[in-house]
């Protein structure tokens, strides 16, 4: 009798998703899908609005990464209005975007990912949360995370008026610059962020890499997926977050494509499947080859591990050292270990902090030349950033008055949607045997998609008893034979 298991985290701000696992007659996993039901009609909602409103609208798309959408929109506005930001404005934007990376990556690692690795994947769910992490690492860790996030949010607030939902993005510049007096606290925040980044990596090394069971988990075949990888790189092919060229590598690490973000539609295809509202992205030149991995796949992955796989190296020295060590442990580049995304995430946060140290010492930071207002509407802009969850594209077109006639967004989780399905399937095949799935094994399936940090990852580490999870098991006729629920 074929059966279906559904894992259904429920949310509102970030969309609504669930996992469906189909069992065959023997009780083994036959197939698995990660499904997302999105709020529909956003792009239609934008059409007819003045394009400059987009920097205030798009941060509300997602409760998790508002700064990424805000910055992509701001960069799209640069092109729509035909202006380059001044060098000082660009530097300040980079400062803000790095600050966002720092606040974003640590909430994911400590509050959502660390419970699996520091408390343990099979631990009682009542302890497998941030309080469990605090129990293992010490009370000060929570306060340190809060403090470092708050300090970096102050940078976002200073530049774009409101944090963590910035809304002051301007074409050609930034609304507010820095004084020499401000430089002191920016430098102090950057210094503290570098110290914290190294502290976080030390915790990872001590508590995760120091535990053979966890290292085995990270290198487990169930958590490997051989795909192409995509990320922004700078002129030196180094990891970059704010701006760069889009580079794609093959599953064995060779350069497959490198292009200007404005040409994204020539390289990225979108495929519609009946079981999900997400348009599944793939490499257009290879065509849609379904949910496959290895040589035949046309799927690519984005997010922290993809960044490190694609780039020739990190932009900053300490992050470079840490990246070298990571690839040494994982057996070289590219690494296909999905759970290593957490490790790569900490290294990206370190680069962001180190880069902000450099910016804090840059004389240009306090320049008054922060706006280029020589607008000439071009009618088209593609804003692209390397968002914390991966490469993000905002494509706007307008009429001659700057009224939106087209809006198309490709978000990081969309880039990863196909691979997430495959990662879930591989983990389910390894850990699910029959309908009587123990909670710990179910969690190990969830770990496969949590590593990508899709917005839904937030659904899975709520505090005791509140994790919204529904598991439905149906027979081959679709009749419900078992329901497991918690926090729904």
């Amino acid at each position: 009798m074929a059966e279906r298991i559904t894992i259904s985290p429920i949310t509102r701000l970030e969309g609504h998703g669930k996992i469906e696992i189909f069992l065959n007659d023997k009780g083994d996993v036959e197939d698995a899908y990660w499904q997302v039901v999105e709020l529909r009609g956003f792009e239609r909602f934008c059409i007819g609005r003045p394009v400059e409103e987009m920097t205030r609208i798009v941060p509300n798309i997602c409760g998790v990464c508002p700064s990424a959408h805000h910055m992509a929109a701001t960069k799209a506005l640069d092109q729509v209005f035909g202006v380059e930001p001044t060098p000082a404005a660009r530097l300040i934007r980079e400062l803000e975007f790095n600050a966002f990376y720092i606040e974003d990556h640590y909430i994911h690692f400590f509050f959502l990912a660390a419970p699996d690795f520091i408390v343990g994947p099979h631990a009682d769910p009542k302890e497998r949360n941030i309080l469990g992490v605090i129990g293992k690492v010490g009370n000060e860790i929570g306060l340190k995370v809060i403090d470092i996030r708050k300090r970096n949010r102050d940078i976002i607030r200073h530049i774009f008026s409101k944090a963590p939902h910035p809304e002051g993005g301007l074409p050609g510049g930034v609304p507010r610059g820095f004084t020499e007096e401000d430089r002191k606290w920016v430098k102090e925040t950057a210094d503290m962020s570098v110290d914290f980044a190294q502290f976080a990596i030390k915790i990872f090394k001590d508590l995760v890499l120091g535990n053979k069971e966890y290292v085995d988990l990270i290198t487990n075949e169930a958590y490997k997926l051989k795909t192409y990888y995509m990320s922004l790189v700078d002129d030196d092919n180094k990891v970059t977050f704010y701006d760069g060229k889009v580079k794609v590598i093959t599953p064995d690490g060779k350069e497959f494509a490198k292009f200007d973000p404005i040409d994204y539609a020539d390289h990225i295809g979108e495929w519609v499947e009946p079981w999900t509202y997400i348009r599944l992205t793939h490499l257009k030149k290879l065509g849609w080859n379904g949910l496959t991995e290895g040589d035949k796949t046309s799927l690519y992955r984005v997010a922290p591990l993809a960044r490190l796989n694609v780039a020739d190296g990190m932009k900053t020295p300490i992050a470079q050292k840490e990246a070298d060590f990571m690839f040494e442990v994982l057996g070289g580049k590219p690494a296909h270990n999905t759970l290593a995304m957490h490790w790569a995430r900490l290294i990206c946060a370190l680069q962001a902090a180190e880069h902000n140290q450099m910016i804090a010492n840059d004389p240009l930071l306090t320049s008054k030349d922060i706006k280029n207002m020589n607008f000439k509407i071009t009618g088209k802009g593609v804003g692209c950033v390397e968002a914390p969850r991966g490469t993000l594209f905002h494509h706007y077109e307008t009429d001659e008055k700057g009224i939106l006639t087209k809006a198309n967004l490709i978000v990081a989780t969309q880039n990863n949607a196909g691979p997430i399905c495959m990662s879930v399937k591989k983990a389910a095949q390894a850990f699910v045997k029959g309908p009587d799935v123990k909670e710990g094994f179910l969690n190990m399936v969830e770990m496969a998609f949590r590593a990508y940090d899709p917005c839904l990852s937030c659904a899975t580490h709520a505090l005791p008893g509140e994790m919204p999870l529904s598991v439905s098991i149906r027979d081959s006729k679709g009749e419900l034979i078992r329901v497991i629920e918690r926090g729904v």
Partner: protein
Amino acid sequence: MAGKENRILILGLGNPILSDDGVGLLLTEKLEGKFSGVDTASLTLAGMELLDILAGYDHVFLIDAATGTGGEPGELKEISDGKGALHLFTSHGANFFDLLKLGRDMGLKMPEPAAVFGIEIGNATDFGTVLSPALLLALPALETAITSRIEQKLTAL
């Protein structure tokens, strides 16, 4: 928002591009400056993201869109357990009340909820930057009722 020495916060939650979902934000903005020494914040946030924003306050008033409260769209409910409120029970890490406990367990000073105001919005989930007619008509009365209730509560705090 003023400095945290005021120690009382009126927090509006919601999404301003989801029509009635944003009613809590609008009402909170209308209350800004009405009460001496009370901060206001209108945020498209929930869960863990609120932790450092709430830390340091003694009391918090919450204003949020709600569904399933049993009322008609535009009806105000004061909900002691917050049930029905749309952004207090997010999947992003922790529900609001657990978040307060988490903060305390971490050694942070966290506020006591002075009142949770839920405004029934029915099943409205459309994109939009304006309220539905029902909510638009109810807005002045909602502002008056919430103002009055906060005044009463402040006297007792």
